[in-house]
């Protein structure tokens, strides 16, 4: 039997690593993937607490998170394709028009 806190800590660590990847990846796709990693970490916490309370709401939320992640991936990858098409580069630092 595994204490819930283990799962929670694991999810915290994964989330942190996701954040690190989010900062240090420079390929847009990889950055996207690190976001997915963070989402997964959150899901883990959800399920862990869900089991801890013996209620199913947590799992329902995980399902929602997954669906939203799917939608986000669809749109995001579409955007990525556009970026690649327009500036022939996937490096975020070359996409620096997001300012006044």
């Amino acid at each position: 039997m595994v204490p819930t806190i283990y799962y929670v800590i694991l999810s915290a660590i994964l989330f942190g690593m996701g954040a690190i990847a989010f900062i240090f990846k420079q390929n847009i796709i990889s950055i996207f993937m690190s976001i997915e990693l963070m989402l997964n970490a959150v899901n883990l916490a959800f399920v862990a607490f869900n089991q801890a309370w013996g209620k199913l709401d947590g799992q329902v939320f995980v399902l929602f998170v997954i669906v939203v992640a799917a939608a986000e991936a669809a749109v995001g990858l579409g955007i990525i394709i556009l970026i690649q098409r327009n500036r022939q580069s996937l490096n975020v630092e070359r996409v620096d028009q997001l300012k006044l």
Partner: protein
Amino acid sequence: MSASLIIFFLLAALAILGAASLIFQRHPIHAALSLIVVMVALAGLYLLMGAEFVAAVQIIVYGGAIMVLFVFVIMLLNAGVEERTNFSKMASIAGWPLALALTGVLAAAMVRAGPTVANPANPGMLSDTATLSTLLFTDFVYPFELTSFLVLVAILGAMVLAQREQK
């Protein structure tokens, strides 16, 4: 050291390794593969916790659809090894410490919270998929509808984005 603990530590190690390799791999495909590893490991953890349906969905949707999409796009754009530029002072200077701080703060908060976190009422008991779906379609029906709408919008958005403008 019970069997479930051993399995947990194996899977956890797998997940963390996967995440680490996601950070350090230079090639998107490899990053994607390591992310898939993480996801499979998480699915295993869900199974260990008895959330079998979520585990399956995790693999089917995340592993089978989303990540495939990623791989697909990587192949489509023929993305090569990512180049490392350091235009962002902010990231290059404050990046590491901040990220580590975030991880630390989170983990520390969790550890501090440790004793207060209740342990699974009945560990490893498989949560019933039927009840889950009932919950999903009764209490959470409005969020459910909303998400369906969101997905629809996402499909349209993706199509609009990805199609080449016709002359």
